[in-house]
């Protein structure tokens, strides 16, 4: 889908010339002031300021986006920047990392930020019975040593060249040491906005702190209000009637209302969010790679992007590494719908036709059932009969995913190649949803962790993507865009982060009133 964005416009020299000739400012200077109002979904009555429990855009926007900071941050352009840490360096085996913390930072209650806060905030995520989404990251740290008040050393179990990227995870918020319980109850962080009021599942209001280390760079609003609007139609109404300035996840069926309205516009970026159909590679008939390849060639990917995502996405290539990753192999040979090739692969495995069950529910992703029906129709042309097994949405993740030989699934992607592969493709990983095992792949995985040279890393991760593409068990037909909409009252630099929804949940930090 072609769409004129500010970014696209700037990218073409002619358009830039026109802009220059008309004397329009190419990029407005940010200015302080105003109240940002966002209508976001994903709010729950169970929400709290505990970063370990955050799982959706509402709380990550309020916590990592307003009230709290992390040690590092992925900037809108995808580069890694320091947030509460100023710089870091690693030993040559990538096992020992030293982080220099920012000095003179204070929490909203006046306490100064230092090494103790880092150590205690990270330790929250590990321990007996602790349930944190970031547990694997912190568990990989064998030792945390306070070198000075503003320097921390991490010794990892195994080398990991991506370690600073992992610390940008939105769960790894920094709390004041010794006051963590209170900070969780009240929302005391080092972020740009202090909590004015918070009603779980309903509303958050934050006020800009008077002086902040990001002054002049980020944090342009005087106040931020985030309203929980879980219903998609209500969200679009709220934007159209001017009651909020930014919303996430729009309804594609009625998006024309937003684009037709001169006061609203859609913004979207392609990130790593992917909709997948994982096959268990150790269960017949999927244990035969020819069968897997036949199935991979029996899906019309572009049709799925057009009909399920209504154009708001791009075709996948059976590799989980997406455009938001550093070493995305964009030029890998594209798997496409090819019934003849599929039949050829079937013949290689000694079959003329194939009949398989596909377990689906819309719990896997919005439109999963429809996507499976499209799959069923296109596979028929390749001599593959897909029997759709409608599964209940309740308990889908415990009873179907990882259990049924072939089902529907989604992944929001991971910040680094290593993390994505380690989580979902490494031998023995609990979430290896294809039971994929490959010796060369594992060798490269370990090698990649201790390699710093960007060229060598590129070679490693390209090869890994190729292996998964050629032999893996996951059919990844599409990558879904992060789509949101905004009113003309607010604006941004034109670069929108693609790691997570609505500018990596950092609208309150990066945007300003137009």
């Amino acid at each position, binding site marked *: 889908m072609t769409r004129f964005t500010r970014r696209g416009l700037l990218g073409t020299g002619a358009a830039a010339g026109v802009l220059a000739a008309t004397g329009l400012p190419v990029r407005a200077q940010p200015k302080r002031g105003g109240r940002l109002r966002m209508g976001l979904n994903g709010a*729950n*009555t*169970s929400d709290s300021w*505990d970063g370990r*429990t955050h799982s959706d855009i509402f709380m990550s926007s309020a916590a990592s986006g307003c009230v709290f900071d992390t040690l590092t941050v992925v900037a809108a352009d995808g580069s890694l920047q320091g947030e509460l840490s100023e710089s870091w360096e690693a030993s040559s085996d990538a096992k020992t990392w030293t982080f220099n913390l920012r000095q003179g930072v204070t929490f909203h209650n006046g306490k100064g930020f230092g090494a103790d806060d880092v150590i205690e905030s990270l330790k929250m995520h590990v321990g007996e019975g602790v349930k944190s989404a970031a547990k694997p990251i912190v568990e990989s740290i064998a030792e945390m040593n306070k070198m000075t008040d503003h320097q921390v050393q991490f010794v990892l179990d195994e080398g990991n060249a991506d370690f600073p990227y992992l610390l940008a995870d939105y769960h790894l918020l920094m709390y004041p040491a010794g006051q963590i*319980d209170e900070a969780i*109850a009240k929302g005391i962080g080092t972020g740009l906005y202090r909590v004015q009021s918070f009603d779980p599942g309903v509303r958050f209001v934050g006020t800009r702190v008077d002086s902040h280390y990001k002054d002049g760079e980020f944090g342009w609003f005087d106040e931020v209000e985030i309203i929980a609007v879980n219903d998609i139609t209500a969200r679009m109404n709220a934007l159209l009637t001017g009651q909020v300035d930014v919303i996430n996840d729009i309804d594609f069926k009625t998006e024309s209302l937003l684009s037709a309205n001169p006061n609203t516009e859609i913004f979207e970026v392609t990130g790593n969010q992917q909709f997948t159909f994982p096959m268990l590679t150790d269960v017949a008939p999927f244990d035969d790679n020819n069968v897997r390849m036949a199935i991979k060639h029996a899906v019309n990917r572009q049709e799925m992007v057009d009909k399920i995502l209504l154009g708001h996405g791009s075709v996948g290539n059976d590799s989980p590494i997406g455009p938001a990753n550093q070493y995305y192999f964009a030029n890998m040979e594209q798997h496409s719908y090819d019934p003849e090739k599929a039949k050829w692969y079937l013949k290689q495995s000694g079959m003329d036709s194939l009949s398989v069950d596909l377990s689906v529910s819309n719990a896997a992703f919005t439109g999963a059932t429809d996507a499976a029906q499209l799959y069923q129709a296109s596979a028929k042309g390749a001599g593959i009969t897909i029997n759709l097994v409608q599964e209940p949405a309740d308990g889908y993740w415990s009873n179907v995913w990882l259990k049924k030989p072939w089902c529907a699934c989604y992944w929001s992607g991971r910040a680094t190649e290593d993390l994505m592969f380690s989580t979902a493709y490494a031998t023995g990983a609990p979430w290896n949803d294809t039971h994929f095992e490959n010796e060369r792949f594992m060798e490269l995985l370990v090698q990649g962790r201790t390699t710093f040279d960007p060229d060598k890393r590129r070679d490693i991760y390209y090869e890994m993507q190729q292996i998964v593409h050629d032999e893996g068990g996951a059919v990844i037909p599409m990558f879904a865009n992060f789509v949101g909409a905004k009113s003309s009252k607010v604006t941004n630099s034109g670069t929108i982060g693609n790691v997570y929804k609505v500018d990596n949940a950092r609208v309150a930090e990066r945007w300003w009133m137009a």
Partner: protein
Amino acid sequence: MHPVLKIVIQRLLLGLLTLLVVSIVIFLAVNALPGDFAQAILGQSATPEAVAAIRRDLGLDQPAVTRYFSWLADMLTGDLGVSFAQANFASFVGTSAESGSGPVTVLQQITPRFQNTMFLAGVTAIIAVPVSLTLGILAALYRNSAFDRGVNIFALSSVSSPEFFLAYILILFLAVLNPVLPSLSNIFSDMGLGERLRATLLPALTLTLVVTAQMMRMTRAAIINLLASPYIEMARLKGISPTRVIVTHALPNALAPIITVIALNLAYLITGVVVVEVVFVYPGIGQLFVDSVKIRDIPVVQACCLIFASAYILLNLLADVLSILSNPRLRHPK
């Protein structure tokens, strides 16, 4: 003992018995839901160990009968329990909430939402009840006239349309085309009454459209029914004006069915407005209920069900008592 008082006490006791039966039904229904809190909250990360750990923490591994009686016992002492969802960060995650305010109880969670719901129901009732009574009386007075037909068609078509459709029509006319009212009912505690009324008006108007038809038509039917009675004919023969015939002669005798219908509709306003709440993002108890069902937060679901059941029982009781009081024959039985 006064017969009315006796009836009230009888009905209250019966109500309690009904509640007990309802509590069993609720408990069985909630238990019949597929999946449980542990699976719902963990989602994709529901490994068998994590699920078992949460179940153990919450006592979900106990047999159903044990859980029912411990819930009932707590309920009798007025303890609605601690919501699983809020207990989440206090106990599952390894920190105690000692220095904080402690885990939020179901009561604390429900109270503000229930107040919002009652506010919305109240505003709706204040608009809907007088409007439907007046329209009903006028329709009876001018029955079969163009006015009567018009009112009936309007009321019937609004009650036949789904609530969300009415809501969107109102949003279209009152928020999008003529931006006079907000489409988001963003209600919070430190809000002035005027502001709150403004934010509540659109959902209240939607609900008014939904409940008016039944009350209006019941008023009309009850009055018309009486207009055929000999005593009304007598009043007419005496030369009393039609308005007076209806308001002072027919209406008092038509009150009983009208009151019953009003009570039913009020109960609906408290328990059944979740669709309207979702459309307007009104933080009422209906949304809390649906959110809680979604994540299988059983203590909240059960407490909400009990509140809904109590609202129905109490309002019906009230309607019965008022019907008796409005009828001298029942008020003074021979």
